[in-house]
């Protein structure tokens, strides 16, 4: 049976078609999920990606309205049951708003939207979305956001570091003022990962700076096939 990975489209989602393309290139079957869907189980998806964009215009606070979308209750429930969930950019912000991941994303310290090819170091190669990388490996994927500064209180940051839950760190200059250069984190179980950079934009040599982002999707696929 093919592995089905869902991509949620909220009003204002922008990188949803890119995420579906990345899933397809990795060899899984992408499933478009509409945010009003109440029960994920009906769609029989094995994993879910919350894509980048500006859900609901990000007018109140990034991700703050999307977390109340009908589908999110089911996503949270499944995630707690161990289903792999990846939040990219706006998706990461939504995961923080739902408290599946700790902390929050704030306005970039230089106050500008920034789009650039970003070097990252993989800090954790044991999550559902990073097992195809090696710890310490350097990758380059696009970064593009206006509110990507990761913040949390010192205790939370220490906990994340202590438990190896910092999944990615920025290299070559912190692009947005994120605490401790954190680009992405994981939950304790390792099935939920959120990051600001965009691996789905680095899956084809023709359109991306590299194909380094493909590993996210092949990691999930391997894990799902194995389980």
């Amino acid at each position: 049976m093919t592995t089905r990975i869902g991509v949620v489209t909220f009003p204002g989602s922008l990188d949803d078609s890119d995420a579906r393309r990345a899933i397809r290139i990795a060899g899984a079957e992408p499933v478009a999920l509409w945010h009003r869907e109440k029960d994920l189980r009906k769609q029989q998806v094995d994993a879910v990606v919350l894509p980048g964009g500006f859900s609901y215009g990000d007018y109140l606070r990034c991700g703050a309205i999307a977390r109340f979308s009908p589908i999110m209750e089911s996503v949270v429930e499944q995630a707690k049951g161990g289903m792999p969930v990846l939040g990219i950019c706006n998706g990461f912000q939504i995961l923080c708003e739902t408290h599946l991941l700790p902390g929050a994303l704030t306005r970039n310290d230089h106050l500008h939207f920034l789009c650039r090819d970003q070097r990252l170091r993989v800090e954790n190669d044991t999550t559902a979305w990073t097992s195809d990388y090696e710890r310490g490996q350097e990758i380059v994927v696009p970064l593009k956001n206006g509110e990507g500064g990761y913040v949390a209180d010192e205790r939370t940051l220490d906990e994340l570091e202590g438990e190896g839950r910092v999944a990615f760190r920025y290299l070559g200059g912190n692009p947005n003022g994120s605490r401790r250069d954190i680009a992405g984190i994981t939950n304790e179980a390792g099935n939920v990962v959120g990051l600001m950079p965009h691996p789905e934009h680095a899956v084809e040599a023709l359109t991306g700076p590299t194909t380094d982002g493909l590993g996210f999707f092949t990691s999930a696929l391997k894990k799902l096939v194995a389980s």
Partner: protein
Amino acid sequence: MSPQSHSHSLDTVKHAEQTPETDLPWKELGLKEDEYARIRDILGRRPTGAELAMYSVMWSEHCSYKSSKVHLRQFGEKAPTEGPGAEAMLVGIGEQAGVVDVGQGYAVTFKVESHNHPSYVEPYQGAATGIGGIVRDIIAMGARPVAVMDPLRFGAADHPDTKRVLPGVVAGIGGYGNCLGLPNIGGEVVFDACYQGNPLVNALCVGVMKHEDIHLAKAAGTGNKVILYGARTGGDGIGGASILASETFDDEKPSKRPAVQVGDPFQEKLLIECTLEAFHADLVVGIQDLGAAGLSCATSELASNGSGGMRVELDDVPLRDSSLSPEEILMSESQERMCAVVEPDKVDRFLQICEKWEVTATVVGEVTDGDRLEIFWHGEKIVDVDPRTVAHEGPVYERPYARPDWQDELQADDPAQLPRPANGEELRAATLALVASPNQAAKSWITDQYDRYVLGDTVLAQPEDSGMIRIDPETGLGVAVSTDGNGRYAKLDPYEGARLALAESYRNVAATGARPLAVTDCLNFGSPEDPAAMWQFAEACRGLADACKELGTPVTGGNVSLYNQTGEAAIHPTPVVGVLGVIDDVARRTPMAFRDEGHLIYLLGDTREEFGGSAWSQVAHGHLGGRPPRVDLERERLLAEILIAASRDGMADAAHDVSDGGVVQALAESCLKGGKGARIVVPDGLDPFVFLFSESQGRALVAIPRSEEVRFTDMCAARGMPAARIGVVDGDALEVQGQFSLPLEELRRHHEATIPELFG
């Protein structure tokens, strides 16, 4: 507002008939005496306030092209009748955007528009809503928008007001475009004191559709419903109509509604998805976006293009502000609204799609079997006009124009007399000054605020010669777009300047390997009431139309922006020309970067001593005079053939157009982009300064792998294209042998520091 407060003031058609002597503020609304007389003539009575509002805004320069029309006709009259460009035209000038066949069943629509004046008043919203407007033009054709580009002109880089305008414009473009999910793949940023007080903010959008999905704006079919959908109508962007509403009809109202519109990109994103879904479900007969002149424009144009009349109930328009008068509702330029004509039995399905996307949609009228546009308010008829007289039969002017008396003196001020760098050390210093000058410096501080990755089909983006988008992931079919327009050249000679703008844009498209097909233009000029500015406009139109005919690239549409003038001081005439090209397989594209050591660098074309309007004369001497570089369109066509063949047959690893700043600027850019140096030899018989800094046209740099050299030079020889081997990709410096060597790090520092230091 209470019903009583306006019942005494409602100016109905009946009331207008009964009170022929009532004075109306036609002058304050920008109408001329004879224009007002003509409106009275057309109607056979005085207009109502609402009718006057409609005519005044639809007959404005911006909507009616009354000063430019007689010159714009040439684009149709001289349009090429044969060749790939002519054969590819599916929809030409006059629709909301032109449509070009790009093969494999795909069509592409693209258009550039100006949002200059609003962007000076309120840079963020002005630039943001400029994107919003052009994107709606594209979706109204039935196309999915796939990319945007922004040609920008600002005052002097170090002027304090530029520090207000530029960051706001850039943040507005980013804030709106990024949130809309459209990659920004190119454009230009140019500084010149002449744009002080009159910055140019042009926006281009490209959309893709299948041939069968092309839709035109018309309201046909009696009984069909008119649906207004998108944002609610508010008081923003009312401009002139507020004079009418507040000063004549109701003195107690707050006057002077804000004239600059406010954008909501989230709403626009929903509009895109909702509109395309309705198109694909075949629910739409005609569609029109609401831009300038709002509902006045949409209803009169839809009705005018259709077969019947239209009846509109203004009470049914969803409002953001319930105190709006009917005139204001008709004039409001609230953003993110569209108007669709839908058959009665499809209305429910149309509304369901709107509901899915949480877009407000309301039936506000229907197509009637008459030929009148009738608008009602509280059951009373306030507009009763022939829509054609509003939308298409406005005044047309033959404005007087005359070659300005200073033109001869300007052309006589030859840059040949300017002191030049005389040795290697001075050439080195001149190179650094050039690459660090605001116009030649890296613009990444600006373009990094735009998302170039979203949608996942961006193959090339700034600072490449053209942006390139993949259309079909299976076959690799793609399009390339470039915009160019050198106001300095056009100031020296507006006829040649317009031809040069096309030549450069055409060359930029070909440099990436795409075949140039069609043109869109944004003609930015001074006041049409100034004979000198009008002469520049007339000359530029003549030049562009001639050049388009010669190159076989038809103009598919565009926009005119006049009155870019403060007092006596007009901007440089600035025809911005966008060229669209097609490439069968984007994997064959040629990027600009020198990537591999050992590749041979060839300069294609002839280098003459041409410094009129050059970047060097501006940077080194603040000079503008003489003649612009000579244009040879046959040579441009040949160069394009060579560049396309080199891409298709895999002969060139890199190609870069030579334009502003000459060969040395192009070399610096290709070296820095690839992080590779170059060793350059000045060709025999050429003065090193002329070789490096001249801006002769019809030239490009290419990097050729040694294995392809013979094939490439044979092709150039066979076709009569001059090709000089000027060096090799090598090392980590730009070295001009016998003259100077510049380590890439030093070059990069100068090239990349300028813009962040000015605006960061």
